[in-house]
């Protein structure tokens, strides 16, 4: 008989507690969109932040929110690529927005050969520390420092320092364009560009030196000297020399490689084209209306010195450069002291460049 009393008491307490819980769960229920979980499941869960949102859950929330507006435009998971975005749009019942896959490119060709060391640095071996101490071991205050902050930042094992050149090289197959290396680089050398068709056909200026031509050339044999030949030869308004350094707009560039063929400094670098470019004089290229397409089966190998070694017939071209240099100096483009600017301003600017 005694056993029944506690059983009854506990039973009643249990019943009351259950009622309270039931009431609370109904009254204070948090309504969560079931699609949030579904989208989260298809995402890679790398939490790399490459999409610009805090982790995969943040991106899932942004996708669901965007779905209410009816478009996934501007949202892209760089790690998962088109496949994952396709699944996401399927879950949300939308058409997938095709976005060009991107890849990180290194905009410095200051290898040991091109850019002699003038001093030795023996402080902490990180780019950030070295950047805070000064220009680094060479005379170029804009170029790669070679300590590999980008390598440490990469979660996908896609960027490595080439021991021969001392410069980072990007593995186009592994790179998912999450932008971690772009953020890690204190010199803002790494840029995300369109991956390109085929084997990754892309073309970019491998230099960010904002010094005037003569000064830049003194510190690095592969520096952009802002001679403006690339700007003149480009028919598509894609190349512009700003702050003493040329920049190829990936949106406008049609990959004709004319700029690469005239660059006296071999500062314009191509990747994934079937054949190395033929060097030409500016005068030969200007009057011709159509670009001469190169075709063949060979492939230029990797990034770096391949081109420099092949094209040594620069003597003639250098004469033209000497004529061009004073013009570049006359233009008096403003020098941007971005390397010494305020870290907050730099961060904001970096974010802007990333978005654009």
């Amino acid at each position: 008989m005694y056993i029944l009393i506690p059983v009854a008491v506990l039973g009643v307490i249990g019943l009351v507690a259950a009622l309270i819980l039931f009431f609370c769960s109904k009254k204070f229920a948090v309504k969560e969109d079931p699609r949030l979980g579904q989208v989260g499941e298809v995402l890679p869960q790398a939490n790399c932040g490459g999409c610009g949102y805090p982790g995969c859950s943040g991106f899932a929330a942004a996708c669901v929110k965007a779905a209410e507006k009816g478009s996934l435009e501007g949202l892209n998971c760089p790690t998962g690529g088109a496949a994952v975005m396709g699944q996401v749009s399927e879950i949300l019942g939308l058409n997938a927005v095709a976005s060009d896959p991107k890849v990180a490119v290194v905009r410095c060709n200051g290898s040991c050969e091109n850019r002699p060391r003038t001093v030795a640095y023996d402080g902490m071996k990180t780019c950030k520390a070295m950047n805070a101490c000064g220009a680094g071991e060479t005379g170029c205050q804009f170029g790669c420092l070679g300590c590999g902050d980008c390598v440490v930042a990469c979660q996908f094992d896609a960027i490595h320092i080439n021991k021969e050149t001392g410069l980072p090289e990007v593995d186009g197959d592994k790179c998912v364009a999450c932008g971690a290396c772009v953020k890690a680089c204190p010199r803002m050398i790494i840029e995300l560009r369109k991956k390109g068709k085929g084997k990754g056909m892309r073309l970019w200026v491998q230099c960010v030196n904002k010094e005037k031509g003569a000064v830049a050339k003194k510190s690095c044999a592969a520096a952009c000297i802002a001679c403006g030949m690339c700007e003149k030869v480009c028919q598509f308004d894609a190349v512009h020399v700003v702050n003493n350094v040329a920049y190829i707009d990936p949106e406008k560039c049609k990959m004709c490689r004319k700029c690469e063929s005239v660059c006296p400094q071999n500062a314009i670098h191509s990747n994934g084209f079937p054949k190395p470019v033929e060097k030409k004089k500016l005068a030969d290229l200007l009057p011709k209306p159509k670009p001469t397409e190169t075709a063949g089966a060979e492939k230029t190998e990797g990034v770096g010195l391949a081109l420099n070694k092949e094209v040594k017939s620069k003597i003639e071209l250098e004469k033209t450069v000497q004529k061009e240099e004073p013009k570049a100096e006359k233009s008096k483009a403003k020098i941007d002291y971005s390397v010494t600017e305020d870290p907050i301003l730099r961060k904001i600017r970096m974010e802007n460049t990333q978005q654009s």
Partner: protein
Amino acid sequence: MSLFCKNTSTFKKGGVHPDENKITSEIATRAAALPKQVVLPLSQHIGAPAKPVVQKGDKVKVGTLIAEAGGFVSAPIFSSVSGTVVKVDTAWDASGYKRPAIYIDVEGDVWEDSIDRSEKLEKLSDHPELTSEEIVNRVRANGVVGMGGACFPTSIKLTPPPTAKATCVIINGVECEPYITADYRLMMEHPDEILVGVELLMKAVNVNEGYIGIETNKPKAIALLENKAKAYSNIKIVPLDCKYPQGGEKQLVDAVIHREVPAPPAIPVNVGAVVQNVGTAYAVYQAVMKNKPLFERYVTVTGKQLHAPGNFLVRMGTPFSQLIEACGGLPEGDNKILAGGPMMGKAVTTTDVTVVKGTNSVTVLTNTDAKRKEAQNCIRCGKCVSACPMGLEPYLLAQLSSLKDWERAEKEDIPSCIECGSCQFTCPAHRPLLDNIRMGKGTVMGIIRERAAAAKAAADAAKAKEEKK
């Protein structure tokens, strides 16, 4: 000597004793030869860079204004030579980067007429027209900045915020940094001018107490100044025990008047002290009494392997290479050239770097002195903790910085670090403690600034909203 050792004091927390190596202390100062060209960087001080007011081809005299202050926290720059402005371009400076600078080709040595070049000692009692404002204005107009190395515009230090009340002026004659003897030579050669300078500083901040702190490794300077200071009832010479970094503002305040400056953003004036260097006191004297802008300074050029090290009176903009040549040229072997001393100095990447307002020394370290020893694992000895003059835990801050744990680093008070390098100096495992902490401090300060800016923006937005209602 024993006389001075009795009543000496020093700062309480931490500190280290590096080898003094003051090899140039008894070498009288000479005027350095005029260079062929001077390069005057526009950022010679903390704050906004100066704005150039001369153009290519302009003729300038010694003491001509060539760049005006670029903002409130800024200082004007004056030509240190007479000649022609060649260009306004960029030049390597001690920051390790190329920054805007004015190049002037030297022609003769013609001074501006407004500068009083006589040797006569002007006394404050003879100039009743000098009010506090007048002194501060003259200091500002003549581009005087802190000569100890930080180069903070002196006029701003002399106008403390209304929330703080200054009670005394403390003059830093400590020169705790190894090798450097520029301040010592200045004290030995111009004690009267320094004392009048201290009087001027005291008048500027309206206080009646002045102290000059000097370490006991300079007994001659202490004796000389004590003797001269007898004529000034309100200036006291305070002998201090030798310990690095006694020249740090906060350490000096602790050593001289035994008050502790709270953590940033508090500054020494919050405990009533205005701290200035002896070099600044001298520059203030020259600016106020002789109307001489700041365009030359005492520089020690030193190094164990240098053939003939010495002290020089150098015009701003003189390249390091010329000073090193004057001392017998660079020694053979691997050299590290520092703008400043071995503890706080900054290694330069080229000898084209020029002397600026904050260059108290050019130190040449050779071979083994020039290189760091290989870093080993931390052995948890705690030496860095006992060496830190700010009472921080350097091993922990370095670790937090390398792990990017900014929140915890802020909690552990990383912004208080004065970057004196005592921790790294004392570390038996040669760990790059300061390198790490400096990185972390920079990032944390950035975060704090960002947060303050965001808070201000939010407050402004709320205010605007309220006004709309």
